[in-house]
């Protein structure tokens, strides 16, 4: 039976209650959706209504931007850079788990230029974060104007960069298949780091438009079984990946599949896996404020359901099932 268990990534953190609670739009709490009684299907360990009440019925303060220092910038390809940024310890320690990301921006740009970028690696001894950025358009080009020793604005921490986090947390002594394509390699690193010690990992890498694998450093550091292949062609899974999944689920007893790539790949993969294993994937929504207000990430589903993908934790299946265009 399929049953969607949802969660709010910020519930139980210093960022809860948020503005959604103030406007009776909390994604979890019935009392903060304008109802008169509790109906706590989705419970994260704290009573959001109580937190809100104790906070004098106002939202807690929003995430703020802080200054970071670019300590290295490596131009991997013409349109692909790796940044290592020195932050503060307070922020850095909140960015260790898979799914963590921050917004980056040039100090002189307005907050409209905030661009969400996943944490690829995070060193809480040195308080540095590493990330790989694809230079795409207006926001990332602006970030690319910065160089080593420049100051960069960082807003965070944010955590909803991965859907199905609960499934990842359940992985111990499991056979796990990770699939990354193109820039998706960067956010798969924390997943690999989190799982490689206690699980057996197969990592499928599709270089995408790049000549070579871009996370070599990490796959040496976190040993796993590497398979290089093309994952998708003309919007369909390649024969190679398709049969690999069938074989691996049957022969290697894979119990979890994680995909870090474009939505089209994730969607095809979910259909292919067809509930034979648990899944997780990266969050490819348009994320602008990251805190439930701007509406950029809202996605509509059948039955007049609106999901705020910057806040909502759910399993990958429910990101695509019944999705509607507006």
């Amino acid at each position, binding site marked *: 039976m399929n*049953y969607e*268990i949802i969660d709010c990534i910020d519930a139980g953190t210093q960022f809860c209650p948020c503005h959604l609670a103030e406007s009776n739009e909390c994604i979890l709490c019935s009392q903060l959706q304008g109802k008169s*009684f*509790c109906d*706590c299907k989705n419970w994260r360990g704290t009573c959001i*209504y109580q937190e809100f009440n104790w906070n004098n019925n106002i939202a807690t303060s929003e995430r703020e931007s802080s200054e970071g220092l670019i300590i290295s910038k490596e131009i991997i390809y013409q349109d692909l850079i790796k940044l290592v940024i020195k932050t503060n310890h307070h922020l850095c320690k909140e960015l260790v788990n898979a799914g963590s990301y921050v917004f980056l921006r040039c100090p002189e740009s307005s907050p409209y230029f905030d661009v969400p970028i996943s944490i690829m690696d995070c060193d809480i001894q040195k308080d540095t974060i590493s990330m790989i950025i694809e230079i795409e358009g207006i926001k990332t080009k602006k970030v690319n104007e910065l160089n080593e020793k420049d100051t960069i604005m960082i807003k965070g921490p944010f955590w909803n960069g991965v859907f199905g986090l609960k499934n990842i947390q359940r992985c111990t002594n499991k056979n796990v298949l990770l699939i990354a394509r193109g820039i998706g390699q960067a956010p798969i690193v924390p997943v690999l780091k989190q799982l490689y010690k206690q699980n057996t990992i197969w990592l499928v890498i599709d270089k995408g438009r790049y000549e070579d694998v871009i996370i070599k450093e990490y796959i040496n550091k976190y040993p796993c079984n590497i398979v290089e292949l093309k994952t998708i062609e003309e919007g369909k899974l390649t024969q190679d990946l398709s049969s690999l999944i069938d074989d691996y689920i049957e022969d290697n007893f894979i119990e979890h599949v994680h995909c870090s790539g474009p939505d089209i790949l994730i969607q095809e993969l979910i259909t292919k896996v067809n509930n034979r294993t648990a899944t997780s994937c990266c969050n490819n929504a348009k994320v602008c404020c990251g805190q439930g207000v701007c509406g950029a990430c809202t996605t509509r589903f059948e039955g007049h359901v609106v999901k705020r993908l910057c806040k909502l934790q759910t399993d990958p299946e429910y990101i695509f099932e019944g999705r509607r265009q507006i």
Partner: protein
Amino acid sequence: MKVVIIGGGWSGLAAAITAKKAGADVEIYEKTDMLLGLGNIGGIMRNNGRYTAAEELIALGAGDLINLTDSVTKHKNIYFPGHHHAWLYDVNKIEPVVKEYVEDLGIKIFLKQRVIDVKKEGDTIVGIILYDGQFITGDAFIETTGSTGPMGNCLRYGNGCSMCVLRCPAFGPRVSISARAGVPDLQGEREEGVCGAFSGSCKIGKETLSKEICKELDEKGVVIIKIPKEDINLEKLKQKVCQQYALKEFAENIILLDTGHAKLMTSYYPLDKLRNIEGMENAKYIDPYAGGKGNSIRYLSMAPRENNMKVDGIKNLFCGGEKSGLFVGHTEAISTGSLAGHNSVRWYLGMPLLTLPKSTAVGDLISYEGNMTNTLEGKRKRYTFAGSEYFVRMKEKKLYSTDTEEINNRVKKLNLQNIFGEAII
């Protein structure tokens, strides 16, 4: 045939036992790590009309749990204001005894399994969903989730979570399963327009009371101490769930009962004031932990039901205990639960469902409560064999008796002897 029970308090356990005896496979899903729910902090049995009901349950073949509470009774036949022949079971001994008994009957118990939703096909429930998405199928379902809390309700309608034995922050909140199945809940009121009611007693660690109080509690089971005049608060009586204890004596005195802990017969009492009382200078709350601030809020989640305990509008959902009405008490939970369990099996077999006649105390309470909750006045009352309005009625209708033989004969005459004890599958 499989009966799935949601909530392992007294009513859920009673339902499990009668369903099992009738011949079903039975599973109990309980959100905490203990059975008994509020039964872990109550203890008073057989006071006033509860004596009659307890003997009636035994005669009807549903005396298992009564026998168990009797077996760990600390004090028998004690008196405290308004209450005669009360028996007090030891709340620190009862749970493991019950758990073992229920397991020995072959009933499957699943602890730390919070139920969050149901799946329906038409008007029939096909299964329940656990907190982690697991789907559990069954033929008939019995909701015995009580009516306490959860935290948000205790805050909106009370003084906030006071950390009661149900431990919502640790095990997750109660969910109204009937409401999830599409049947809106009914609410009790404490006064006009004010929903819910405060639980009516707390537990204080006996070790924290003076030697003299402890000694008297051990010997007599009850201690009554005058409250300083300036601290008497008659207003608080109105808020109470347990109208059988909403007597002047309970506002003017500290009444302590020995149920293993010292049971303080008031809904909450500021700790600094409590410690002004002689012998209680070092008192400490054991349940609810924040008994100085508030108590749990109850009766916000009752399912509309028939007198055979079937929930209106759903073919295979039954209910018992506080879920099934404005009932207060272990004995009341066991009574309603027993009927629900038995009828779930009858329903499956296509047999007519049993309604207990009004010439039994249990049958009369169930039908009286059913009529009253639909009235404005009735919503503000609570229904128990132990006192207030219903006990008056019991006496008027000559249902009240402490004569076991008389009670047995009544049940026999109605041909209901051991009806809950017989296998029907």
